[in-house]
């Protein structure tokens, strides 16, 4: 190997070292990924009726209610998209309407507070194993 070859090889090692540390940095940074919320988007009926999709934030509700309240007492299946919820049911006091009645929580005439999702979002759980987690990779 000539001197030029030696220098080139040194350079390429330095270059590889740089890439290695850059990768290391990227790896460490990924530990600081943004928190995932497990929000459920409901858009089976919403946009068909010219409303924004509904966003249900699990984190907000679980501070106030255990899972069993909605998933046992109120009958919400534990699979996003498997609950056929419509405004009629809610107004009748079923599903969300058990609390969203103006007494425990805001009533159904505050449309925009639930119908607050980005247009075009699909029904499902967002920020979870369905999206950026290891599931469905």
């Amino acid at each position, binding site marked *: 190997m000539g001197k030029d070859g030696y220098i080139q090889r040194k350079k390429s090692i330095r270059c590889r070292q740089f890439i290695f540390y850059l990768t290391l940095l990227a790896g*460490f940074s990924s530990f600081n990924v943004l928190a995932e919320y*497990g929000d459920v988007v409901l858009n089976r009926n919403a946009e068909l009726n010219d409303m924004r999709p509904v966003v249900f934030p699990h984190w907000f509700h679980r501070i106030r209610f255990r899972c069993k309240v909605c998933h*046992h007492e109120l009958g919400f299946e534990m699979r996003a998209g498997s609950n056929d919820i419509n405004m009629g049911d809610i107004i009748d006091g079923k599903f969300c309407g058990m609390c969203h009645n103006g007494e425990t929580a805001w009533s159904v005439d505050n449309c*925009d507070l639930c119908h607050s999702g980005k247009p075009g979002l699909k029904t499902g759980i967002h920020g979870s194993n369905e999206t950026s987690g290891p599931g469905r990779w």
Partner: protein
Amino acid sequence: MMKATSFLTSLLFLLSLNTAQGAPGWKALTNDEVHDPTSPAIGILQEPATALALLPSDTSGNRVSWIRALRERYIQPRTNIYPETEIKVLDMDIIMELTGEMPLVRFPHKPHTEWLDCDNCHDKIFIEKVGANPVNMFAILAGEYCGRCHGAVAFPLTECNRCHSVDRATFTGQPGAQPEKKVSELIN
């Protein structure tokens, strides 16, 4: 040259440490990619950071240790709406042995039943019989079994050792259902 390289290395290392221990990244509602930033609800709905920063922290998921939040009474979520609903808490572990080369899995009923009712899992997700459920990581990663909640609303599947927590070499008991402990404290 070596000096410069090692300087660069330590700088990058410090930077990465700093990044790794940074504040949890609770996205604001305007850029969580779920809420419409033009929605009138923005500014009225509670921002996640406002609520979650007050709770005991965790290193993954939504960065809250919900088990500690409940046990240490940072939060006191309601157990029921209907007065006649029976609140059932079970303190019984299941040790799962078919885990390949990974440590055995300890499934604790207690933290699960503090949040959930028996019928949330039995028999819809898990048949109530040891050995009757062909649980495996592929199914879990696809959102079945434990994956129904873990990764979505409970700690994610990247936290291997939280479930695979029992050392195979030192475990001397019988796998399967462990003796039921009395629930000393029913958290309400």
